[in-house]
């Protein structure tokens, strides 16, 4: 089909971006979950951090870092990790 040759689906890379609040920033959600766990009998849990996971398929994984800096994360308050999975 015309126009489809450039982006064959199997040339894409599957990526995961894990975004977390930076160390030193109060993670109110993490703290709340940490306080809730002992109430259910789960003792000995600390440093609960809550972030978000973004899954995406990209043609050019070299651009993911820029995507993170400009949109997916706010680098002032969040850290991010990118992992790639070849298909």
């Amino acid at each position, binding site marked *: 089909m015309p126009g489809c040759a450039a982006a064959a689906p199997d040339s894409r890379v599957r990526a995961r971006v894990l975004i977390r609040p930076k160390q030193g*920033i*109060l993670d*109110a*959600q993490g703290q*709340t979950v940490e306080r809730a766990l002992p109430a259910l009998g789960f003792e000995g849990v600390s440093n609960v951090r809550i972030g978000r996971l973004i899954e995406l398929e990209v043609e050019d994984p070299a651009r993911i870092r820029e995507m993170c800096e400009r*949109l*997916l994360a*706010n680098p*002032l*308050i969040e850290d991010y990790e990118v992992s790639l999975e070849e298909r």
Partner: protein
Amino acid sequence: MKFGVVRFPGSCDEHDALLACRRFADAELLWHGERDLKGVDAVVIPGGFSYGDYLRVGAIARFSPVMEAVGEWAAAGGPVLGICNGFQVLCEAGLLPGALLVNAELRFLCRQVDVEVVNAETPFTSTCDPGERLSVPVKHTTGRYFAPELELDELERSGQVVLRYLPGQNPNGSRRDIAGVTNRAGNVLGLMPHPEHAVDALTGSTDGARIFESLASLTPA
């Protein structure tokens, strides 16, 4: 003198902002999909949930056509007032320093607070006295102002901290009780409290009107 109030999909305070502006000057709505600022003399980014607050509050709105125009307007020295979600949008757009995080107690807050006018020499506070207290409501889930310590020092030194919650009234865990900050040039202000909801005695306070009155007293460029 004419105000322009931006309307995004998901804005909800644009009408109150429009009515507050119209107490002192002309005002009209600016649609998010248009780059045209219609010759206004001051821009208000109102509260609400622009673009559903998807990803992060304010993160998507900053890419709208109107925000391109607002960025150019701000760079040229034009006054921009961002209220609540408008504050979040301006931080995401890089027009204001810092970021807003979920309230320390994770809850949505809706209450009247007292803020102190720390800097009365801005286009937004020129009709206030230094140290004057204003009673205005807050209503938000993501209002905890954050900036790195060194930047906070710099903001205080350069007079960019314009409004502060009174001691004991910081509702959301904002660093150094900051309720409102400007950019370095002083022509962009973001604040979490809602001055547009405090312009009529019917709702308990008219203190918020001072912000709009100050802007309206500017000589149009």
